[in-house]
């Protein structure tokens, strides 16, 4: 996978069960030149990754077929793909689990979209290793 700079043309898989939230994320990242793919739940996301591994995955955690083991499953099919997890009011324990399961970044909802953008951008620019706050 080749590194993508400024997000242009990078494929971003957005996994979100909430339609409004998905719409918001699409609007925001679309405007930045990302190529977006969407999934509504864990299973769709998994299938989508199986079809073609995106450049980065931005995913919710609490959704059908979600949770921390969902992150582990994604990691098995996309070992190198940066995974950014956001979840509503998670706690330290959950964050630790998610990162341990293979996520590259973790965000508690509500999160400033700007922060998300920065994080995704950094991950795409510098490869895996960046962590959420």
């Amino acid at each position: 996978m080749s590194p993508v700079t400024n997000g242009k043309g990078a494929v971003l898989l957005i996994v979100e069960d909430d339609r409004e939230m998905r719409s918001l994320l699409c609007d925001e990242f679309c405007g930045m030149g990302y190529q977006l793919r969407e999934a509504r739940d864990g299973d769709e996301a998994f299938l989508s990754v199986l079809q073609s591994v995106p450049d980065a995955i931005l995913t919710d955690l609490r959704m059908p077929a979600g949770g921390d083991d969902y992150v582990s499953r994604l990691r098995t099919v996309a070992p190198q793909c940066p995974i950014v997890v956001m979840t509503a009011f998670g706690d330290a324990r959950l964050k630790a689990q998610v990162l341990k399961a293979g996520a590259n970044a973790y965000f508690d909802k509500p999160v400033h979209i700007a922060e998300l953008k920065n994080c995704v951008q950094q991950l795409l620019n510098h490869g895996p290793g960046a962590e959420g706050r």
Partner: protein
Amino acid sequence: MKDVDSLVMRVVHWTIPLLTIGIFAVDLLTPVGIAVSILYVVPLLLTVFRSKEQESLYFCGLATGLLWLGLFLKPPGSSLLYGVLNRTLGTLVLWILALGLIRFRRLQHESVQAERDLMSERVERAHAEGLMMEAQQARYYADREAVRAGVGRKEAEGQLLVAQLRLESIIESAMDAIITVDEDQRVVLFNHAAEQMFGCSTQAAIGQPLDRFLPTRFRDAHRHHVQGFGQSGVTSRKMGHLGTVMGLRSTGEEFPIEAAISHIAVEHQKYYTVILRDITERKQAEIVLKETTERWQLLMQYAPAALAMLDRDLRYLAVSQRWMSDYRLEGQSLIGKSHYEVFPEIPERWKIVHQRGLAGEVVRCEEDRFVRQDGTEQWLQWEVRPWYTIGGAVGGLVFFTEDITERKRGEEALHESQRQLTTLISNIPGFVYRCRNDRDWTFEYLSEGVSDLTGYTVQEYLVQRSISYGDNTHPGDRERVWQEIQAAVAQRRPYETTYRILTRAGEVKSVWERGEGIYAMDGGLNYLEGFVTDITERKRAEHLLRQSEERYRRLIAISPYAILVNRGDRILFANDQAIKLFGAVKADEILGRSVMDLFHPDYHPAIRERIHELVEGRAQVPMLEEKIVTLSGRSVDAEVSAARFVDEEGPAILVMLRDISERKRLQEQLRKTERIAELGTVASGMAHEIGTPMNVILGRAEYLMDRVTEEPIKKGLQTIITQVERITRVMNQLLSFARRKTPERGALDLKQVVEDSLEMFHERLTRSQIQLELLLADPCPMVLADADQMSQVMINLVMNAVHAMPNGGTLHVALAPELQMVKLTVADTGHGIPREVIKKIFDPFFTTKEFGKGTGLGLTVVKGIIEEHQGSIAVESQEGAGTTFTILLPMADNKT
């Protein structure tokens, strides 16, 4: 017969001398050996017929003379001695005979006197009448002889002589006075008895008028009466027919007489003969007899004994009133009725007794049962005694009986009561005694119980006297007992004392004694009587009871429960816990008060109901949470249970209370904690749900913000963003409280945490013009705490302080060891917390901060953390002057 008698008299008159001369002659002629002289006995015996008794004596003297003269005159012979003996014997016989004759004649004379006895009155009267008849007959003969004198003088003279002799002897020997008067009522005959009766000699009486012997007032009547009698055809009137008339003695004394009168005409001359009898004595005897009879009847009738007199056929002659009442025969007439008819129930054995009585035996019985026909029972004491007629034959029976039924019953009752007393005395645990008032307490009576008590027998005390009760008394008590009893006796009151005795086995026993002095009529002390019983067991029981009481007293004293005893709505007892619970210093502050005063009025109805249940007999009521009111008026939660008990003063209620305010507080805290935990769970769940929508709002607002240029719209969008951030803060606070992890406690240098935290606020404090005052002990002991949580505590408190001082002030932070704790103080000089609010500051979601500045969870979290660390947090605040939070945290062990 009379003729023969007079003939004998005349023959004797001359026979005695002839016989005497004849015997003397024969005596002379016969030899000495033949005792002819004894023949003098014959004439001696003949002297009996002589009228004078001395004649026998005279003759005996004469015969003795002749007897011994004959011996002298006779030629003396060889048998002279025999002759002397013979004549001596003869003389003796003669004199004995002579004396015997005299005695015989005297006895005869006395028996004649004796016949005047009152009891043989009838005989006497008959005799007198006989004499009268005889006299009349004699006079008749005499008269007839006199009339016939002319015809056959010789014969007549002979007969007359005999008649006169007989008459004279009769008249002289008659016991009644015989007076004959002529037609002029002059006395012509006045016998010896008349002499004695009127006290007038015959010489003086002859020729005197009869009037002289009559009281003057009877004289005329008498004269007419005599003349009337003389003219009547009746020749005699018997004794008594004339009634009683009065006589007059020469002494002037009047006396009652009975008279018989007869008249006879001799040669046309009328003679009246009266025979008079002095009946003074008889009259008196009659009165005596009457009185005796009356007295006897009175005695018989009113004798306080049951008496009955019956004849031989057992018919009643007389009964006493007592007889009638004893046998319930009142109203019946028994006289003449048969005993067996009156008492058909008489048993056969009594009939035999009656027969024995009639045979002359006196039979008595002390106690006999008599079952009456109606079935009732009578106990009798009786005696059956025969009574005798004058003739000496058994005339019948006299019954003396006494109804002893009552006595018998009394005796039985007494016997029963004595038996009961004996049983009682022998069964009492102890002994009764009578003793002398001496130092040995010498017993005079003692019940058997003494041997159980002292081991010595009654015999040893009373018979052998080998032991005294004084010796038994414990030497340590002897003098005291003596003094006590003497004091009681001196005051004449009963004594009661407790002392020890030594038994035969050497045992020491405690005894209780009660007794009193028994005093004589003169007031002196006779002896002491009383009762002694063993109280060793009681003493032991008392001791055990005291021990038990002590145990329970201690139990109550150390009981964690406050205990009250209530009787009749008054508190009688309160233990130390109760005194403390109600905030009293002394028990007196509680005792005597009503139980209601000590309980909160809200609970009064329930308490009344519970008391009522207990009084009605329920043993106890279950534990219930109530509120008491201390003496200072503070309400305290207490757990109350009560039980009923009854002692000699009646039912009472035992109340047990325990202060549960601390427990309540802990419960309340737990409840709050639980509520907060629940809240955390809810918040956590909610957070997941609202996280995404909030993110959408926030994201959209930011999205628009980047795309609009109009300031009013930008401002609106910024507001949306700020508000979402605020919600996010609240949610995070809430979640951090709800999700707080188990603290990882270790030795922590609190000073470092304080300094780090304050460092974070440095800029803020400066901006708010807040002076920082630090007073940190150096070195300060480590505390056992979690660093993150301590930091959270510090941040919260400093944040509050900063918010309290919007116009600046001083923040004072101090850290110092205190006992085994470390004290952290955070004080501000801010606006302070109002009094009504201060209690609520630790409650979740309570905030005084303006909308948007506080979550209402900061202090809740702080308190939760401190308490999790076994520490404490306190707040002091004065409105307008500032607030001080004081936290105490346990020190860490040196090792950790």
